């Protein structure tokens, strides 16, 4: 990480800065989505961009997710670099054909001739009291599809560096931002930097147990690690940062070292991201594991509205702490 001279940004600001820098650098980059121009997006992530880059490059669309994602695919094939904004991750249900049957396959089906350099930015994460259709984390679907890359940043620093790389990538990249993290602050240097896709980051070193966590779950894991420290358990926290490509080596090495692993992800627990990561680790570190890899995801229920119910659906520092202590006990 370059020296940051104490500068701190929120995750929303980091995303905006990445977009602005890439739009300045490359006039082919543009953003399209709903209420993103003057409104700057309901989460205010894009405030100010239309003023700098104009309505031609920060484009308000109709509420036509499938349609404008398709337009982005065609624009990407013919020389532009679209960044598609899907307001809530729940609405990706509407764009799967364009992402999966078109964007992900165009390069392969054309024998490598056409390319689709586009970024899909959307959100994940619950606990905003937004109920079942505005709280999902559906990134596992994208991870399953060859031809797509999938990025889940967990800090402002990572968000900026990874988004810049995603925009420069020659392939369709799905980029998931946790809604609850938009206000999270963290160091972001003034100088330009990028972060390669496919490089996990060890957010905290430890020796007794490895906690692999994605996006929103990284902060929960770090909180749990502190609690564990008080209980004299040293937890290593690793953020894969990109789920495809997946940095299997870093995950497996850590598992070999600590011999115990918890995998956390905010998607639905069943048939989710944690299953793949757990499988990779179980395969790669089989002879070093002292206990089965434990998966902690969202409950296998639609996200309820009622606050006490919703809070029960996602892992917490306390629940991770307890799971980890039980494994190390």
């Amino acid at each position, binding site marked *: 990480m370059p020296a940051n001279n104490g500068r701190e940004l929120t995750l929303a600001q980091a995303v905006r800065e990445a977009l602005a820098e890439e739009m300045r650098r490359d006039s082919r980059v543009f953003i399209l989505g*709903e*209420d993103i*121009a*003057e*409104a700057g997006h*309901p989460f205010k992530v894009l405030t100010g961009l239309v003023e700098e880059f104009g309505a031609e490059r920060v484009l*308000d*669309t*109709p*509420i*036509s997710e*499938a*349609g404008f994602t398709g337009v982005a695919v065609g624009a990407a094939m013919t020389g532009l670099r679209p960044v598609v904004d899907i307001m809530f991750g*729940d*609405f990706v249900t*509407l764009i799967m054909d364009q992402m999966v049957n078109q964007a992900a396959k165009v390069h392969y089906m054309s024998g490598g001739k056409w390319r689709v350099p586009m970024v899909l930015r959307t959100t994940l994460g619950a606990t*905003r*009291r*937004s*109920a*079942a*259709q*505005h709280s999902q984390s559906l990134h596992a679907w994208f991870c399953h599809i060859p031809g797509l890359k999938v990025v889940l940043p967990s800090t402002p620093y990572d968000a900026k560096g990874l988004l810049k790389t995603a925009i420069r990538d020659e392939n369709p990249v799905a980029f998931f931002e946790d809604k609850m993290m938009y206000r999270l602050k963290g160091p972001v240097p003034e100088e330009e930097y990028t972060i390669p896709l496919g490089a996990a980051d060890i957010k905290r070193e430890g020796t007794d147990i490895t906690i692999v966590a994605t996006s929103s779950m990284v902060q929960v894991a770090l909180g749990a690690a502190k609690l564990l420290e008080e209980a004299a358990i040293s937890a290593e926290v690793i953020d894969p940062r990109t789920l495809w490509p997946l940095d299997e080596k870093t995950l497996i090495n850590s598992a070999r070292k600590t011999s115990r692993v918890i995998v956390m992800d905010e998607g639905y627990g069943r048939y989710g991201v944690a299953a793949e990561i757990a499988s990779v680790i179980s395969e790669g570190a089989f002879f070093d594991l002292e206990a089965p890899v434990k998966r902690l995801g969202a*409950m*296998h*229920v*639609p996200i*309820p*509205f*009622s*606050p*006490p*119910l919703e809070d*029960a*659906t996602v892992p917490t520092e306390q629940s991770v702490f307890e799971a980890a202590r039980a494994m190390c006990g």
Partner: protein
Amino acid sequence: MATAVDPSQLDSQTGNERWLRMYRRMFTIRTFEEQVNDLYTRALMPGLAHLYIGEEAVAVGICEALAPDDYITSTHRGHGHCLAKGAAPDRMFAELLGKEAGYCKGKGGSMHIADPATGNLGANAIVGGSAGIATGAAFTAKRLKTGQVSVCFFGEGALGQGSLYEVMNMASLWKLPVIYVCENNLYNEYTHYSEVTAGDILARGTAFGLAGESVDGQDVRAVHAAARKLVARARAGEGPAMLLANTYRYYGHHVGDVSRDYYRSKQEEQQWKAERDPIQILSDWLCGQKIADRARLDEIQAEVKAQIDQAVEFATRSRYPNVDQVEQDVYAGE
């Protein structure tokens, strides 16, 4: 296609009681929503809510043309539709607060009020997401010959969703008793509809063979007259229709949207409130026709306010669901 309907033609059939009932309903919606805003502002309500204030005449004029077992589907801005179709304010508030006594045991919240007892197939937080459901309900009604009609409420923003046209095509082919009600309140969130809507709105329905009608959504009598006509038509097996109701929301897109200058002017808001208020328009007419005097209307208002106060009280006092509820209702019959 957009033929004007003379509401006075229907007066004899509808009767004074009906107009007063509509007045009460519209005022109920408004008072309910003002309370929602208040609860939100006082940080007593979890999440967000989308207020229907200003658009009351649409939901009420249409639902008054429906039988209790006719179906509706609603939107993220759904309180008005639910109340107009007969939902009780106390259980609505309870739902908005995430309480067990709510219509959905607190699991749905503001955007998902549903109630089989009043034919409410559910509010829906996916823009355009309920068009298929409303069409399917009409399919059942036709297939089982129940005589029911289905109404799909949606904001003009849902005109952007292609699946709307897919189901309009099927409704037209199969002559289903469904009415697609487009509530054009001029804005998709923070964007004026004209920036994202090409061509002609009603033509989008008629191109698929639907009957099309457009109406002043601030005049409950006009809305009701158009609805009666289209409902009768649908019930008689003459097929689906699209009704375009021109209206306006007074508040923000949701309760937290308070600084609206960047997308619309205070003057525009003031003008609608002053000149096109649906409750005012109806009161003026009721008084002008001597169907009611100011005192009678004040009486109704007082009754409604008392009811709403009680409803808030009920909801505030009632309890949250037990945490073990979280894993129930995922699968039916288990």
